[in-house]
């Protein structure tokens, strides 16, 4: 029952809010209610169900990593929903926004709880296409453009995805997602299938080199929408990967290396590109890309074997949890500085600071855990070049700090209201701050064995006060902060762009478009040529018409007929016929 409510309530909420007139409150509350089942499922263990009637026989259940992610998603949607309720209260298109918002929510929950291919794909698609409405929401030309690119990329992804699913299901012989990783591990074309999936979901994850739609689309949406886009939905791709990846069952060095290297490229590269943006939301989008890079790395390690899935996947989920909540906090935060004034600003800055630190993995935050997890697994893995990766990880901490401090700097440039005010949507933000994943307790979500594994059985507190880990976590951040401060202090180093970004958002896109433009033109021309050729192609009936409707034809046949009617010719005909028949009869 609750499983269906998880999906149905958001849909109901969507329809309900769609009809809610602009300016009326309460939509936020409705959304919160809609997320309750999901939150419940996220916290409590509920045994899965089978829906004989649904699609191609639906199954719904959860395992630890997906429960963690569901919890994250629930929290984010609740916060964002509440936020939007007041943030967009007087907006003319609120109803429409709520519709797409709710639909997307349903999709997002559904894909997390569904345990078999068809329904997973269903909700994945629902989420993808419904969020189009969120991206295009503002109807500005840039938003339309972003939405178009988003859609194209989404369909591109879907195609790879469905192919991967066809092949996977065929080799697994079952629609259950749980059966797929083992099957892929066995199947000769397993790596190929996984590669297809890697691309298909990679679009959603924003993995290199498919990420370029993301810095356009995420900022285009209004703050609550981008919060869930960047905090929750981006993880859907990750879930997809987890479903396909036979972690711990196989050794696919090449794929694993590929993922790890791509992951690090994303982590560092996106951070660097993000720094030189001028729009805080774009900056955050890049940060999301870089963070997803880290998770890509983790999964990549898993494909090298040696690490059991039960260890790795929850770790990834926890990382996602931490990043998601923090990122949502920051995204929602982008709406604040222009509205929050006076003493409230202290609270605001504090919250934003926590968010930043959590992502950067500072001590006293959940980020510490997650970073430590990554470090542990990187240390464990027998993947060639493990040490370099450790180094890169440390470096990434620095870049992340730089990136996010740059974000704070960008926010700081926004002009604050003079008087001492807090908008109504400040409250949900605070709630999210409280519910966030940076509390050191968040590892409690992890399965005990993983806990013990990390804390060497000494329990959370011991780990938490371990000086070494804290130091390891601390110094890169400090370094980053110092660098940022210096660069801002001294004009000579202050090469941060202010008006327009050094690199346009969606960097790679521009190259692609530049390169693809002539190709596309050529293609379009070719197709239209073919089309016109087909149109002008003389089809049989046209030939016939031309023949039969022609004056000349009728004239000719008429004269031939008159000829046949002349007595002389009849006589000749008679004679010939006579002779022929005579010969034939002889």
């Amino acid at each position, binding site marked *: 029952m609750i499983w269906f409510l998880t999906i149905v309530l958001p849909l109901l909420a969507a329809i309900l809010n769609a009809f809610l007139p602009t300016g009326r409150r309460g939509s936020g509350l409705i959304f919160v209610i809609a997320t309750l089942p999901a939150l419940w499922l996220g916290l409590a263990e509920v045994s899965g169900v089978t829906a004989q*009637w649904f*699609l191609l026989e639906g199954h719904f259940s959860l395992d630890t990593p997906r429960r963690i992610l569901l919890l994250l998603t629930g929290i984010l949607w609740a916060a964002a929903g509440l936020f939007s309720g007041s943030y967009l209260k007087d907006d003319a298109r609120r109803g429409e926004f709520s519709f797409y918002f709710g639909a997307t929510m349903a999709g997002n929950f559904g894909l997390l709880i569904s345990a078999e291919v068809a329904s997973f794909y269903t909700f994945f698609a629902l989420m993808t296409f419904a969020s189009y409405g969120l991206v295009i929401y503002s109807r500005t030309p840039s938003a339309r453009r972003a939405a178009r690119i988003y859609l194209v990329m989404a369909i591109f992804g879907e*195609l790879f995805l469905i192919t991967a699913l066809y092949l996977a299901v065929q080799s697994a012989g079952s629609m259950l997602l749980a059966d797929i990783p083992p099957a892929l591990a066995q199947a000769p074309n397993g790596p190929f299938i996984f590669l297809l999936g890697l691309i298909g979901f990679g679009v959603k994850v924003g993995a290199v080199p498919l990420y370029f739609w993301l810095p356009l689309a995420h900022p285009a949406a209004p703050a609550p929408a981008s919060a869930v886009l960047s905090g929750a939905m981006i993880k859907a791709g990750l879930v997809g990967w987890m479903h396909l990846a036979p972690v711990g069952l196989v050794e696919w060095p090449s794929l694993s290396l590929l993922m790890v290297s791509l992951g690090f490229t994303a982590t560092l590269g996106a951070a660097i590109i993000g720094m030189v943006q001028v729009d805080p939301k774009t900056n955050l989008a890049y940060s999301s890309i870089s963070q997803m890079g880290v998770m890509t790395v983790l999964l990549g390690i898993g494909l090298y074997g040696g690490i059991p899935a039960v260890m790795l996947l929850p770790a990834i989920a926890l990382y996602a949890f931490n990043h998601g909540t923090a990122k949502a906090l920051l995204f929602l935060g982008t709406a604040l500085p222009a509205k929050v004034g006076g003493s409230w600003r202290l609270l605001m800055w504090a919250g934003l600071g926590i968010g930043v630190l959590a992502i950067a993995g500072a001590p006293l935050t959940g980020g510490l855990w997650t970073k430590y997890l990554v470090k542990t697994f990187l240390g464990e893995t027998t993947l060639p070049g493990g040490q370099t990766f450790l180094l890169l990880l440390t470096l990434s901490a620095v870049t992340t700090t730089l990136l996010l401090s740059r974000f704070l700097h960008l926010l700081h440039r926004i002009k604050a209201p003079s008087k001492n005010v807090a908008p109504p949507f400040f409250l949900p933000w605070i709630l999210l701050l409280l519910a966030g994943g940076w509390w050191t307790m968040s590892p409690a979500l992890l399965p005990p064995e993983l806990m013990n594994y990390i804390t060497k059985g000494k329990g959370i507190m011991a780990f938490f006060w371990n000086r070494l880990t804290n130091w390891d976590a601390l110094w890169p951040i400090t370094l980053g902060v110092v660098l940022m401060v210096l660069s801002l202090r001294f004009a000579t180093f202050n090469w941060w762009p202010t008006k327009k970004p050094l690199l346009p958002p969606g960097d790679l896109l521009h190259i692609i478009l530049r390169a693809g433009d002539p190709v596309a033109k050529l293609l379009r021309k070719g197709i239209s040529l073919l089309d016109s050729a087909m149109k002008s192609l003389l089809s049989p*009936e046209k030939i016939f018409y031309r023949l039969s409707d022609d004056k000349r034809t009728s004239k000719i046949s008429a004269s031939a007929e008159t000829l046949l009617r002349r007595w002389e010719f009849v006589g000749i005909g008679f004679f010939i016929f006579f002779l022929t028949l005579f010969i034939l009869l002889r």
Partner: protein
Amino acid sequence: METTSLLPLLILGSSLIPGVLILLLREDQSALRSFLNLFGAVAKVSLIAWVFAGYLRGEEYTFIFRLAPQLTFALQVDQLGLFFATLSSVLWLVTTLYAIGYLEGGQHRRRFFAFFSLCITASTGIALSGNVVTFFIFYEFLTLATYPLVVHLGTDKAVNAGRTYLWYTIGGGTVLFLGVVGLYVLAGPVYFGQTEIIASLISENAPQLTILFFVFLAGLGVKAAIFPLHSWLPISMVAPAPVSALLHAVAVVKAGAFGIIRLVYDVYGIGVAEQMNLLTPLAVLAAFTILYGSIRALFQDDFKKRLAYSTVSQVSYIALGVAIPGVLASAGAIVHLVHQGIMKITMFFAAGSVAETYGHYKISELNGIGRRMPLTMGAFTTAVFGMIGLPPIAGFVSKWYLGLGAVEAGSYWVVLVLLGSSALNAAYFLPIVYRAWFCEPDHERVSRIRSGRLETRALLLIPVVVTGLFSLAAGVFAALAGSPLSIAREIAEKFYLL
């Protein structure tokens, strides 16, 4: 075979008799006419339901009338036939409602509804026909019954379209005639399902059988709009919306597709067809048609023309599925009979309502129409996503089966074709959706032709919504027993057990 029952005949009569009666009515007796129509439609649906129930109980309904030695008119009830009959009768009911609303105050309504009924009679006859010659009879009957509908408007455009329509269909019919006679000469009277007859002949006269197969294919391909023979379909778009809807969703194109299914599974038998590898050419043709139709559709600005080209491409899914050996693929093909039908009819209804309500015939005029006709365009959008093959809409199910079937059969190029067509579908359908929902209406065109308390006249609205819901439900509840999918699976499995 000997148990003769009049029920099949009755099913035909349930639309034939109203049709004839309507022909005898006066033009202005519209109430009585509508009553006859609906009565016939409902009667047909319920009769078919009754027969279906009986069939599932294992009863046999067969009606046989011998015209001449070796030339029998046979109506026979089997699952595939019932499947198709159900589709056509249900959609007929819906379309009748729609047509009554659509033609309100139109000309020559007597003629229109009369031939409408005859047309559905023909397609039910095709569904229930028990042997090749009966099939042929109804196949031709269908051609004739649809002609007055195509030229209904009587404009020169319509009339010329009708000319081309006949040019193709009669041509196809003639070729089919050749094939049918040839088959009779070769194999005697062939009842559907008696695949052993052909199987026994395969040893000595294989070449003739091959030739015959392709003659048949040419004959059926015309109505199924397979590539070189498809041109009539977009041209006959001049017909009124209900006609195009019925033509595309049920009657004509499906007659062709259904014929191909019968030919491959019930006349030749999948075994023989594979053994003589007759299927590969069919598969290639179908695949090409799928892509070709989609590409042509990209360039149409006329709403119905675009839909027509999409039909060209979508119907070939059926042929493609038939041509891929394997239960999954054929299940996909058979279920697509229904799924394509309900989705496409939704689209045509929507197009018709838009044209009737706001006088928009071009896609470039549709900006913001979604705001003004939310329900209609909502249904349309559902159908669009179905066509693209997105879950949980009907189209996804058939595409899923086709794809899995292709993978199973190891013909990966088919998967590529499916993907390509999905992409193209998106490319030519999503712009419509985009205009409808995300573009601001350009305000000089909001003049409304027909006004009503709802977004349009109720009789135009209800059918769209209903079929839209059908196409949603057919997907969402696909796993339920009695859903199109489940029936299609049973049928396909039967074929492969034989």
